[in-house]
Structures are given as structure tokens and as C-alpha cells.
């Protein structure tokens, strides 16, 4: 028998919370008492998140339809619903971002904080009091993190959520992007849109791409029989450009619809960002 939920204070006053597949790194700045209250609230809220989600897991793993009942499930549903018309999506596409958002909400509801960040495996919810900012590092391959750029998120910006998706990450992807990083109004919106854009970076039928049924690896994956990427062989510069263009078109649509604020797409060492990007600086 082993501990289910784990909580530990990390150097720098950060709090690490883990329960089943959920893994959070939380940081908060403010007066010491307020930070203590916020971390206590985070832990308290975290205690039954997994139970809450699992109570309606079958609904959350099915294509977006009727609204679920849990608060986090509703965040997931609201973040994925705008994309249902585009194709297959389940609320699970926003689970990481929605959990981060909910824990952040519990913290800011319990204490006055200068800044706070809840990082759920790369899907991050931010709190910024007026006059504060966060500097965010960008990586292109989640399995081999190396900094390739950074973004400054100031309190004046509308960005409060950041997410990265790609086939090398912890979740399955239908596309071949190494990483798609999205800045959005909320972490759940960022999570859902990063998934959608990463799926759209693709070269259907390409012989160098290895795909397997999602349920052949994880029998209860919400992607079921759909083919997920598990290997990408050498691609020509032209193929890379074509794949990135596919994802980029979707990203521009989402930008116009106000569902994302900024993004960066990475594939095989190439990067695409929107022309008038303000937030992603120094992207190689």
C-alpha cells in the first residue's frame, strides 16, 4: 500500500502536489501569511479533485456533448465545446489546464497574492496582481527540454493560461508537432487549443510517420481507435513547412475567434509564430 496523494515543499517555497496522474508545481508570491493560506487552500482543494473528476470520467472521455456537473469538468467542457464543430474532441483535451485553473482559483479566493502560478505538467494557470509579470521559458521538445525562447506575461496582458502540446509530451497527439505552445485567457482554453493546433500539424499518410491505435497503448484512452503518433522519421524542409502551415492556419482561425492570444509551433527544428506576435520574444 502506498500513499496516494503526495505533497512536498520544494526549494524556493514551491509546493508539489501529486495524486494519481495529476502532478502540480505551485508557486505563490505575497506576504508570508497570505502565501501560507494560499498553499493551504491549494492542498485542501486538491484533496478531492481526482475523485471529483473520476466520478464522471466516462462522460469526460466521450465527445463533447451535454454539460457535466463538476466545477472542473465544466471548465473542461466550456474550453473544448467551441472546437466540437471542427472535429473529434473530448473534454479531456482540457483536463490539465482546468485542474490548474481550479487550484489557482482556490488560492486566490483564500488569500491576497502578488503572483501565483499552478503548473500542471506544462499547462499553467497564472495570477498577476497589477504591476507584476512572469517570465516564461519556451521549449520545443518536452522530452528534452532546452530553452529556445521566452515570453514575458505582464498583468496588463489578457494572458492567464499557457499550455504546450505535442506527440513527444505525456498525452497522445494526432499530429506530428514537437510542441505547440499557446498563450490564452485561461489555462483550460490554452490546453484545449494547443491540442487542436498540435493535431493540425500533420502530414496524413506520410510513410515516415509511425502511428498506432491509442487504445493499443492505453486501453481507456479517450482517443480510442484513433491513430496517435509515436514516431516521426526524417522529413524534407518542404514537408516540414507544409505540416506547420496546416497547424498555423488553424492557429490563425483561433486567434481571430479570440480563443488564443499567441502561439508558437515547433516541428523538426523549425518554428512558426504569428506575424504580429508581441509576447513570444527571442524565438529562434
Amino acid at each position, binding site marked *: *500500500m*502506498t*500513499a*496516494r*496523494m*503526495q*505533497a*512536498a*515543499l520544494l526549494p524556493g517555497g514551491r509546493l508539489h502536489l501529486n*495524486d*494519481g*496522474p495529476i502532478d502540480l508545481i505551485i508557486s505563490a508570491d505575497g*506576504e*508570508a*501569511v497570505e*502565501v*501560507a*493560506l494560499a*498553499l*493551504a*487552500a491549494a*492542498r*485542501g*482543494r*486538491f*484533496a*478531492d479533485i*481526482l*475523485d471529483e473528476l*473520476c*466520478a464522471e*470520467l466516462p462522460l469526460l472521455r466521450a465527445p463533447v456533448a451535454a454539460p457535466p456537473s463538476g466545477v472542473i469538468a465544466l471548465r473542461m467542457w466550456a474550453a473544448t465545446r467551441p472546437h466540437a464543430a471542427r472535429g473529434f474532441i473530448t473534454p479531456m483535451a482540457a483536463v490539465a489546464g482546468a485542474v490548474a485553473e481550479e487550484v489557482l482559483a482556490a488560492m486566490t479566493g483564500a488569500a491576497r497574492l502578488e503572483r501565483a502560478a499552478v503548473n500542471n505538467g506544462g499547462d499553467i494557470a497564472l495570477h498577476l496582481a497589477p504591476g507584476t509579470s512572469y517570465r516564461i521559458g519556451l521549449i520545443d521538445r518536452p522530452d528534452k527540454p532546452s530553452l529556445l525562447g521566452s515570453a514575458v506575461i505582464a498583468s496588463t496582458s489578457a494572458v492567464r493560461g499557457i499550455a504546450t502540446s505535442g506527440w513527444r509530451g505525456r498525452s497522445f497527439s494526432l499530429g506530428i508537432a514537437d510542441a505547440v505552445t499557446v498563450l490564452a485567457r485561461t489555462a483550460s482554453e490554452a490546453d484545449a487549443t494547443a491540442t487542436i493546433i498540435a493535431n493540425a500539424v500533420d502530414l496524413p499518410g506520410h*510513410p515516415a510517420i*509511425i*502511428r*498506432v*491505435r491509442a487504445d*493499443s*497503448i*492505453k*486501453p*481507456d484512452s479517450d482517443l480510442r481507435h484513433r*491513430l496517435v503518433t509515436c514516431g516521426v522519421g526524417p522529413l524534407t524542409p518542404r514537408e516540414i513547412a507544409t505540416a506547420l502551415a496546416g497547424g498555423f492556419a488553424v492557429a490563425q482561425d483561433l486567434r481571430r475567434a479570440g480563443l488564443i492570444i499567441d502561439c508558437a509551433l515547433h516541428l523538426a527544428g523549425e518554428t512558426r509564430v504569428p506575424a504580429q506576435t508581441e509576447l513570444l520574444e527571442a524565438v529562434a
Partner: protein
Amino acid sequence: MTATDQPATDKIRCDACPVLCYIRDGQTGACDRYANRGGALVRTDPHVLLERTIRDGRDVVSFHDSGKDWDGRVVAGSGTFVTAIGAGTTYPDYKPAPFIVSSEVDGMDMVTVVTEGIFSYCGVKVKIDTDRHLGPECAPVRAGGEQVGHVTTTEYGSQMLSLGGVRHLTGGSKKEGRVTCETLLALCNGQSAELTVDGGAVMTISAGQAPVINGAAEERMRVGCGSATIGMFAKQWIAHVDEVVVVDDHITGVLSEHQAGKFLGVRDTGIKMKGHRSTPGRYFKVAHPGAGWGGTDLTDPLAILKPFDAKEAWPGLRMLMVSTTGEHHAYFELDERLTPIEMQLPPALAQSVERIKENCEPALTTVLFMGGAGGSLRAGVTENPVLLTKSVKQALTRVTAGGAPVYVWPGGGITFMVDVTRLPANAFGYVPTPALVAPIEFTLPKADYEALGGHMGQIKSLAEVARSSEARREPQVGDNPWPLDRGKAGRP
């Protein structure tokens, strides 16, 4: 290219958390912590074997890599002790405990019955070395808004919390039980807990660490109450000062009235204290509890003094006011109208204030796990559980928790306490009931075990256990006595 479908029969269901993943052979679940290996659910944290290592040497045995086969290392009989950590449970315990291990100690067959007990009746007693007021006695203590325990009686220099217990674990809402369990687990495994007390403090505590109270790390515990401090330091003061007031939330001491002052011939100073006089020179309730001087709410120490008696006091009278930790201090001299005027602390007195600080021990949070071994757990050990209880009471059977010594509470049942820092890392676990899982081992001579109605057919040799289980080897913690030593008690 597309991988072909795999047969559906190679997957198992993991019940470690409510996600209840189906996991295929060779794959992990959503958490990457549980895996399917050849149809068996395996986890990444293996069974712990304590190894006796040379105390002062560097001969610390590294973890046995659970991913590899046993390396063939010979396990010396009495040098290895199988703990219950990771042994697994058989709740409800109709079956014998998971590991009944024989090892030879000094030519005598010893049996260690090892099981991870599920404790619904359990909790922790937390001792927090601080004079700061954490909250009124009986006040609810909360984690994440849920009540997980209460403030209990204050001890000498320390505040005490009683957390957990069956009422919070299973008697309240599902969330209350869950949060209580997580809090106990965190504290037992040496992790931190953030707690709030109704009408009191916010604190972050973890076993063996200094408590953080209202955002400030506590450094020292008081040397004694105000009266005791007078007794300890009176002799060092009398040459340099006419009056000393040691401010304390419990008993505030006044040198000139105190027995110690009288004994040393200290002259009356005409000082008039507020609060209730207990015996000469000792005052209760000079202020309210708080985060100020000596655990009171005082920020201005003069607030506890009434005007000096003009018949006895004199202009130029020198007075030191100091808290029981030396953390707060101020030096005054009376002016012509007998009003105390704050002055620079003279060097000799500064030294005595330092001395008070020096004598205050580092403030720590200490956590004792307390739980009761239920009938079914005992049945896993012998066919006649009451005989085990009797054998433990008569000290014929040694009880340990993860190899650490325990205190078995007198009276009925096997209710024990153990300092959580004396167990190997992450020794405690959890079941969704919710209840805590704690390791418990019973060690006794094989002949005695047979006499108790032990499950003799289930006994394995130590070598067998070491070979068959995925064991993690760890040195015995700190100065814990070796569980298999026959030691001073004469029996194990």
C-alpha cells in the same frame, strides 16, 4: 504504418487510484507509477528491508533496483530485518499476514511477522516547540478548510495538537475524511502540512523541522516560564540591575518579589504588576496570549506595570524587562517622577539576555503516530489474537514499526506510539476508506510463536523473502535499536 491490434486479454485493471486504468502488459497507467508486468500489477516503490550497517561507516546499501532481478547477494541472518513497509495488507485479515519470516539470531530461531496494518483508529500527536499562541484549547485545527483535529493541552514550552482520529477520518463528510487522511499521511511521511486554527494561527509544520507560524519560522523554545527564568539567572543579574521582569504568557516573574530575589537579598522596588499574583513574584495572566512578548499579545511591556509605589521606589532604579526566550528585551531607569524611561541596554545585561537565548533549545515540530492494531490484524499473526496481545504486554513479543521502537500503551489492545522520524522514508500509506496504512512488525522466538498459535506453515526464510520480493534495502534509521537484538530486555 499501423500497429496491429493486440489481444484484449493482456490488460489488467489498476485500483491504486480512482482513475482505475486498464494497463497492458509492459505499459504503465496514466500516472506512470503502476505498471503491468506479465499480468501482475507492480508498483515502483519496493518492499523495504532494513540492513544493519556499521553505524559510523559509509556502508549504506543502495536501493535494490526493482527493475532488475535480485543480484544474488547473500543476506546474513541477523543483519537484515524485514520491515512491514511495502509488505501489503490482507485486509480484512482472515489470511495470515503477508510475511512471516524466520531469521536466526545468536543460534535461536526468531520469527518476525510483518504486515502493513490498516489503521482506522489512528492519528498523530504533534508537539510544536513555541510559546506563541496557536489558538485556544479545544479550538478546531483545519487543513484546507476541513477540521482535521484540535488544539490540546499546552505542555512545558510547547503547544500540542491532536490530529486525526476515527471521528475525522470516517465520522464526518467524505472530504473531511480525505483531507484528514492526507494531512496525517503528509506529517507521518515527513512532508509538510499547512494548518489553520480557528481563532488562532496559520502554520506550516513538518516532523523534525522548525515550525513556521503566521509566516515566520520559529527559532527557539523558551528556557522556562518567567518564574523559572528568574530562578536560573537571578545571580547573574543582581550586580547590574535592581529589578527584572520576565514576561511570559504562563507565569511572569518579578525578581525583587521572587523567592530567588529574596534569598539573594534584593531590595524591594515598589513595582506594581497587573495580572493575578500566584505566589510572591509569580503572576498569571498579565496579558492575553498572542504573538508579542513571551507568547503574550504585548508589544509595550510597560503595559503590564502599574505606577511604582513612591514609598519604596527611587529615582535611578534600574529595571530589565525580558521575554522567556530573550527575543524581546528592554532596559529602563526611573526618572524623578518614578516614570520608567527606556535606555540603552548595558553590556552586562546584554550578555545575560544572550545567555537566556543560548539556553533556549531549537524549536522543532515533533510528530508521534498513534494507532491501535485491530483484532483482524492480530488474527493475521496468530490463530488466537488475544495471546498476541498478552505476549506483547509481557514483553515477550517485540513490536516495531518499520523497524523503529514503539511505545505500547498499557491496558487493553495493542495501541502504540512511534516517532515518525525514526521510520524509513515514506513508510506510511493510505487506503480510500479513508484510513492510514502503517507498517507493524511482531518479533518473537519461533517456539513462542508456535505456542501462540502462529501460522507456522506460512513461515519463510529470510533468504526466500529477499529473493522473491522486490526489496529495497535501507540502513537502520539513526540510533534505533536493532529489532532482532535480544538486548537489555533479555527477550526480543
